[in-house]
C-alpha cells in the first residue's frame, strides 16, 4: 500500500489521470460481459464517470503543479504535468465526455452500444493526454499511436456500414503511412542529438543553430566578422570550414518529416484528404471526436515540438507554416462551399480552422499562443455543438447528415435551430461568440508580428466561410420542412448541447476567465 502511495506521490502523479482512465476502460470491458443488452448504456455511464473522475484528478493536480513551481516532472523526465497539460488534458476530457454523451442514443440506434466502443473512447483520451504530457519522443509517439489506433477502430466501428469500413481502411492506411513518416523524422531527431528527450534535442539543435549563426557572422567582412573568426579559431577551429547550410540540412529534413506527420493528424492542406472521407464515413460521434479531440491533441504535440525542439529555427519555418495555413484556409473554404453533406462540410470547415490556428503559430508571440489555446478551446465546443445537432437529427430511419435533412429544422425543433445558429456564428467567427474571440487573438498576433497581409487574407476568408455556414443556417431556418420527423433530444444530448452552447457564448460574451485559462496553458 505504501508502495502504491509513494508511487502516486512521485512518478505516478504525473500519469494519474491517464491511469484512472485506463482503469475505467478496463472496467467497462469487464462489466460489458455481464450487462444485458438494454442496460448497455451503463457502459456510457461508467465511461462518463471515468472522464469526470479523471477530470477531478486533473483539478487536484493543479495545486501540486503550482506547488512545484509550475511543472511536475516524472518518469526520468519523460512526462510532465504543467499548465499546458492541465489545459489540454481538461480539453480532451471535456471533449471525451461530450462525445460519450452524444454517443449513447446514436450507438443505440446503430445497435452498436458496446463496451469496446466506450473503452476505446477512453483509451483514445489516454493517448491524447500522453501526447500533451509527454516530453520524450517515445512517449509522444506511443501516445499518438494509441490515440490513432483507437480512432481507426472507432471509425470502422459500424462494421456493417460500407462507408464506415471504407473510412476506417483509408484512415488506417494513411494514418500508418503518416506515422511512418513521423517516425522517420523522430529517428533523425534522435540521430541529431543522441537523446529522445525533447529538451535535450532542443538544446542540441539550438547549439547547432548558434554555431551556424556564429559561422555566418564570421563570414561577414569587417571587425565583427574578424572577432568571430578569432573566437571560432580558438574554440572550434574545424568549424571555420563548415558550410552553415550543410549543418542545417538534417535538422531541416527532420523538421519537415515531423511536420508532415503531424500536419496529417491535424488535417492541414495538403495532408487533409483523409479528413472529409473519414468524417463522413465514421459514426457521427466519432467524427466529432476526431474533429475536436484528435486535432487538438495533435496540435498540443505540434506546439510542444515546434516550441521546444525547433524553437531556435523559428524564423525560418514560419513561412512554411504560413504557406500551409493559407493553403488550408483556401482549400478548406473553397471545398466547403460545394458540400451537401453536413459532416463533410464540417470537415472542410475544420480544415480551414486549422489554417487559422497555424496562423497563430506564425504570429508566434504570446498573443499568438494564447490565441491558439483560445481558438482550440472554442473550436472544441463549437464543433462539438455543431456535430451534436447533426447527431440529434439522427433518428431511426433518418440518417440526417445531408443539408436537405435540415430543412425547416426551425419549425421542427426551434431549440436545436437556435443552437445550430449559435454554433455556426461561432464557427464563422461572428461576435459575441467564442469563435470570434479565438480569431481575434490570432489576428492580433499577426498584426503584432507584422504580417498584415496574412491577416488580411485570414479575415477575408471569414466571408466565404460565412457563406457555407449560413447555407446550413438557411436550410434550418429559411427552408420549408419536408416529411422529416421531429427530432427528439435525449437528456444526454441536451446536456452536451447545453455545455457546448454555454461555452460558445460565455467565451464570447465574457472572455475574461477563458482568457486567463488560455494564458495559464502557456505558463502564466
Amino acid at each position, binding site marked *: 500500500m505504501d508502495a502504491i502511495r509513494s508511487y502516486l506521490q512521485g512518478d505516478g502523479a504525473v500519469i494519474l489521470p491517464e491511469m484512472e482512465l485506463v482503469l475505467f476502460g478496463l472496467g467497462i470491458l469487464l462489466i460489458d460481459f455481464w450487462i444485458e443488452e438494454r442496460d448497455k448504456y451503463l457502459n456510457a455511464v461508467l465511461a462518463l464517470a471515468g472522464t469526470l473522475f479523471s477530470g477531478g484528478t486533473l483539478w487536484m493536480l493543479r495545486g501540486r503543479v503550482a506547488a512545484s513551481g509550475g511543472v511536475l516532472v516524472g518518469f526520468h523526465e519523460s512526462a510532465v504535468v504543467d499548465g499546458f497539460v492541465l489545459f489540454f488534458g481538461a480539453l480532451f476530457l471535456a471533449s471525451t465526455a461530450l462525445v460519450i454523451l452524444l454517443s449513447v442514443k446514436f450507438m443505440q440506434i446503430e445497435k452498436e452500444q458496446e463496451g469496446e466502443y466506450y473503452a476505446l473512447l477512453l483509451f483514445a483520451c489516454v493517448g491524447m493526454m500522453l501526447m500533451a504530457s509527454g516530453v520524450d519522443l517515445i512517449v509522444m509517439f506511443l501516445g499518438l499511436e494509441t490515440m490513432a489506433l483507437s480512432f481507426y477502430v472507432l471509425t470502422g466501428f459500424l462494421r456493417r456500414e460500407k462507408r464506415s469500413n471504407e473510412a476506417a481502411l483509408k484512415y488506417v492506411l494513411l494514418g500508418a503511412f503518416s506515422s511512418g513518416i513521423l517516425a522517420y523524422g523522430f529517428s533523425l531527431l534522435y540521430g541529431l542529438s543522441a537523446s529522445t528527450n525533447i529538451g535535450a534535442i532542443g538544446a542540441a539543435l539550438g547549439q547547432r543553430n548558434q554555431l551556424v549563426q556564429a559561422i555566418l557572422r564570421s563570414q561577414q567582412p569587417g571587425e565583427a566578422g574578424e572577432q568571430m573568426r578569432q573566437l571560432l579559431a580558438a574554440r572550434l577551429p574545424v568549424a571555420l570550414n563548415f558550410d552553415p547550410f550543410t549543418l542545417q540540412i538534417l535538422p531541416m529534413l527532420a523538421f519537415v518529416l515531423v511536420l508532415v506527420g503531424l500536419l496529417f493528424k491535424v488535417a492541414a492542406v495538403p495532408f487533409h484528404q483523409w479528413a472529409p472521407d473519414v468524417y463522413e464515413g465514421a459514426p457521427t460521434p466519432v467524427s466529432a471526436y476526431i474533429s475536436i479531440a484528435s486535432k487538438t491533441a495533435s496540435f498540443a504535440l505540434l506546439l510542444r515540438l515546434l516550441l521546444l525542439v525547433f524553437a531556435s529555427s523559428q524564423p525560418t519555418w514560419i513561412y512554411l507554416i504560413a504557406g500551409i495555413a493559407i493553403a488550408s484556409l483556401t482549400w478548406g473554404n473553397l471545398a466547403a462551399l460545394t458540400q451537401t453533406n453536413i459532416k463533410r462540410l464540417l470537415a472542410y470547415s475544420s480544415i480551414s480552422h486549422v489554417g487559422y490556428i497555424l496562423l497563430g503559430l506564425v504570429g508566434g508571440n504570446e498573443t499568438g499562443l494564447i490565441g491558439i489555446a483560445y481558438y482550440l478551446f472554442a473550436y472544441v465546443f463549437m464543433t462539438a455543438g455543431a456535430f451534436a445537432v447533426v447527431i440529434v437529427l439522427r433518428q431511426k430511419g433518418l440518417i440526417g447528415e445531408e443539408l436537405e435533412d435540415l430543412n425547416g429544422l426551425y419549425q421542427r425543433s426551434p431549440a436545436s435551430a437556435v443552437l445550430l*445558429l449559435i454554433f455556426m456564428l461561432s464557427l464563422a467567427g461572428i*461576435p459575441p461568440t467564442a469563435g470570434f474571440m479565438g480569431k481575434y487573438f490570432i*489576428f492580433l498576433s499577426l498584426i503584432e508580428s507584422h504580417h*498584415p497581409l496574412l491577416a488580411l487574407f485570414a479575415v*477575408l476568408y471569414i*466571408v466565404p466561410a460565412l457563406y457555407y455556414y449560413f447555407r446550413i443556417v438557411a436550410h434550418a*431556418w429559411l427552408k420549408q420542412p419536408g416529411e422529416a420527423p421531429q427530432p427528439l433530444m435525449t437528456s444526454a444530448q441536451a446536456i452536451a448541447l447545453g455545455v457546448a452552447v454555454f461555452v460558445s457564448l460565455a467565451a464570447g460574451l465574457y472572455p*475574461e476567465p477563458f482568457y486567463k485559462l488560455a494564458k495559464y496553458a502557456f505558463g502564466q
Partner: protein
Amino acid sequence: MDFLAHHILSVVLFTPLVGALLLLFVPRERDAVHRIVGNLFGALGFLVSLPLLRWFKPGWGGFQFEETADWIPSIGAKYHLGIDGISLLLVMLTTFLGMIAILSSWSAIKLRQKEYYILLLLLQVGMIGVFVSLDFFLFYVFWEVMLVPMYFLIGVWGSDRRLYAAIKFFLYTLAGSVVMLLAILALYFYAPVEPGATRTFDIPTLLAAAQTFTDPLKVWLFWGFFFAFAIKVPMFPFHTWLPDAHTEAPTAGSVILAGVLLKMGTYGFIRFSLPLLPADTAMRAKIIHIVIFLSLVGIIYGAIVCLMQKDMKRLIAYSSVSHLGFCTLGIFALNPNGLAGSVLQQINHGISTGALFLIVGVLYERRHTRLISEFGGLATPMPNFAAIYLIVSLSSLGMPLLNGFIGEFTILQGAFQVSKAWAAWGSLGVVLGAAYLLWLYQRVMFGPVTQFANEELPDLNLREYATLVPLVILAFWIGIYPKPFFALIDKPVQEIVHRVNPDFYKAEHANLAAPELQASRVQVK
C-alpha cells in the same frame, strides 16, 4: 430616477433586449400578444430615449452620459458608452424609426410573428449599440451582431429572392467589417501604451493616439476602415448589395435598413475615418479626391440608374445610393457646413426614405406587387395617400421647407467652399433626383386607373397614418426650423473639424476687410 439619469444609455440600449427576452417566453400561438408586446417595446424604446434630448447639453464638448464598466480587463476592452450630438441624433433616429418600423408590421407580417418581433428588437439593440459605444471592441460586437437579425428579417420575411438577397447582404457587409476588424486591431496595437499597462480599446483614447501615427500607417488604417464603411454606406462600387437587400426585405426591414443601417457607415466615416486622414497635405488630398470622386459618381450613378427601374423598392434603393453620396460628399468636405449638413442629411434620409419604403409597403400590402407598371392612377382611389406620398417624394428630392433641402443645401455649401466643381456635380444629382422621383410618382399615382385591381384600393387606415404622419411632421420640422438640430451637432462638428482640418480655422488672413464682415465673424474657441 437617479439610476435612469446615470445609466440612461444602458437603459436605452437594453430596453429592446428586455422586450425580446420577454417575447421569448410568450407562447408561439399568441400572435396578438407578440404584436402588442413588440409594439409596446418599440414605443418604450423611443420613450426612454426621449430624456436624452432633454438632458443633453449641446454646448458641452466631448461625450455625455458616459458609462464605464470593466468587461475584458486583460485586453483592455470595456463596456464604455457615451454620446455626442451626432450620435444623439442617430440614436434618436434609431429609436424613432424602430418604433415606426415595428408599428408598420402590424398587419403586414403574418408569418412567425414571435420571431419577427424578437429579431426587430434585437436589431434595435445592435444599432443603438453601434452609435453609443465608445469602446472599439464593444462597437465591433454590436456592428456584427446587428447583421444576424437583419439576415433573418430578409431571409424569412422577404419576398421571392430573399435567400439570395439575405446572404448577399450578410457577405458584403461582413467582408467590410472583417477588414475593419483588422484596422481596429492595428489601431489598438500601434497606439502607444505605457510599459506594463494594458492596451485599451477606448475610442477617444485611440483616436487621440492615432494623431501620433506616421502617415503611411494612417493611410493603411484609413483604407481599412474606409472599406467597411464604404460597403455599409454604400459607396459607388460597393453598392450592389443594397438594391437586392432593400427590395427583398419586408417593409420594416427596408425602413430600418435604409433609415438606420446605412447611417452606420457614414457615422463610422465621421467618427473613425476622419481622424485617420494623414497629416501630409498631398496624401490627404489624394485620398479625399478618391473618396469625393466615388461620392459624386454615386450621386449621379445612383440617380441615373433609378430612371430605368421597374420595381419601386429598387428605385428607392438606388436613390439611397445617390442620397448617401451626398452624405459622404459632405463629410469629406471637411468643414463645418459639410459635416453638419451630412449629419442632418443622414437624419433626413432616414425620415424620407423610411417614409418612402413605408409607402411602398402600404401598396405592397394591398396589391402584393412592387412593380411600377402594376400601378397607375392611384390618386383617384387613394387621395390622402397621394398627398402624403407627394410630400414624402418632395422631401426626398430636396424641396425647400422640407427636410431634404436643408441637408442637401448645407452639404453643397460645404462642398462649394472646397471645390466649386464638387458642388456643381452634386447639384446635378439634385436635378436628377427630381426627375426620377416625380416620374415614379407620376407613373404610380397619375393617369387613369389602368388595372382593375387598383380601382377599389382603400385609402390609408389609422395605423398607416400613425406610421407616416410623424415622419411627415418631422420632415416639415427640419425643413422649417432646423436650428435645434444644428445646435445639437454644432459642437461635435466643430471639434471634429478642429481635429482633422485645423487649417480651416487657421486660414483667416484678411484680404476682404469689410467692417460688416468683421462684425459677423464667428467667434471660434
